[in-house]
């Protein structure tokens, strides 16, 4: 039930995006909630070793918190963790992916802007990452798992765009509004979607896109997460989709995602080991 945020105390559920040190003992928590969007809350005394709340308010945790809004900035008066995603936090590559999706969410949402679909997308993706980390820890094939993780990232990026209102047009040409050709189409980040063969040849700043990539994007945009994960795509196609979706997301948040650089750095370490 949604509580009245104007009242002195209210309770809500959310996912911890990040925490920043505040003063000697406090931490400023950025919490993405289902009911109030992103909120910033002070967790008092949380940096003391004896704090009862510190373990509950770790990054990525899904928590239920009681909030007091008696001062200029709301503070957490109590809380309990609901999901810790503990497997996710034990695998470096998966943790870096979790940072990636949380960083994207942090960039795409504004304080206080409610978006239940986006909250649900974040929660489901964290759950899937946790499951994948568990599969890796029990000895499933690492290569297959990494393909699954990458596919999950593409699913997240595309649905983040859709749920935030920046859905790329994937069925019609964004220039002439006519159906696409069977091949020879392109895409334009600035125009927000695919460009048909005729307009592609006449329009500047349009990049080519393969037929397989169009089919793949359409499938990922309409499928449920579990169905989407059954898709098997080759590394070349994965790279193409990754590049396209990153261009679309970068067009909105207008900066490189730091976690992407961390993922690349981790990949370089593992390649060096092989």
């Amino acid at each position, binding site marked *: 039930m949604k509580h009245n945020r104007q009242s002195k105390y209210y309770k809500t559920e959310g996912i911890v995006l990040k925490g920043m040190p505040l003063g000697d003992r406090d931490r400023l928590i950025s919490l993405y909630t289902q009911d109030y969007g992103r909120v910033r809350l002070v967790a008092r005394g949380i940096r003391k070793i004896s704090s009862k709340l510190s373990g509950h308010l770790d990054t990525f945790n899904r928590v239920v918190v009681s909030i007091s809004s008696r001062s200029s900035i709301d503070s957490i008066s109590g809380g309990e963790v609901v999901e810790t995603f503990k497997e996710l936090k034990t695998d*470096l590559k998966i943790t870096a992916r979790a940072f990636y999706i949380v960083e994207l969410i942090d960039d795409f949402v504004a304080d206080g802007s409610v978006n239940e679909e986006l909250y649900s997308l974040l929660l489901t993706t964290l759950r899937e990452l946790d499951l994948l980390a568990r599969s890796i820890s029990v000895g499933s094939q690492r290569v297959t798992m990494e393909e699954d993780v990458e596919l999950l990232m593409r699913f997240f990026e595309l649905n983040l765009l859709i749920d935030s209102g920046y859905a790329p047009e994937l069925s019609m040409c964004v220039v002439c509004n006519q159906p696409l050709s069977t091949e020879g189409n392109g895409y334009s980040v600035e125009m927000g979607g695919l460009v048909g063969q005729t307009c592609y040849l006449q329009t500047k700043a349009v990049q080519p896109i393969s037929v397989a990539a169009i089919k793949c994007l359409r499938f990922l945009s309409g499928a449920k997460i579990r169905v989407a994960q059954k898709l098997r795509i080759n590394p070349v196609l994965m790279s193409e989709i990754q590049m396209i979706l990153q261009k679309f997301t970068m067009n909105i948040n207008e900066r490189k995602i730091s976690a992407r650089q*961390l993922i690349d750095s981790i990949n370089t370490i593992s390649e060096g080991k092989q």
Partner: protein
Amino acid sequence: MTSRYSEFFHTTGALGRLVEALNKLPGVGPKTAQRLAYYLIRTDDADARGLALAIIDIRDRITYCSICQNITEADPCRFCTDENRDSSRICVVEEPLDVIAMERTGSYKGTYHVLHGVLSPLDNIGPENLQINELVTRLKENTVTEIILATNPSVEGETTAMYIRDLCGSMVSSITRLARGLPVGGDLEYADDVTLIRAMEGRQEF
């Protein structure tokens, strides 16, 4: 030049500059800055000048140890030059204040390496912003038998520890992590799942 603080507090000149400078300190808001500035006007001349000289001294004298990256007045620092310390063991910490906390225990006789932060993509802090390359150089140039990863038990601290483990694993025979679990004075009833699981995993013969 008139700053926005000078206009806000109706303070100009030296007092305005002091209020503005104090306001830049972490945890000090405009009101506290004003209160501190007025305190410094009323306090002993020796105390106020002592504070000013201490600030100048840390700017002039404090540097970073070229080996462990800790803050020091002499390079290399006293921990790196102490022959009674075991230089084959390196305790990796986030901040210089963590070195002080470890030293307070008096139980560790190895050396340190200060990262000056943790991996935190949301704050734009990546591996290149930390003193990780310096640690790698140190491992290549010296005989190190153990790295003790003493970053905080937060997601960011764990990620940093895992990153260093993967990067340096082949350069050193042993990489250990500080034990995680219930703190002294803690309450089992209020502990979160992860803390309890780790406390259970790390249990010892009693």
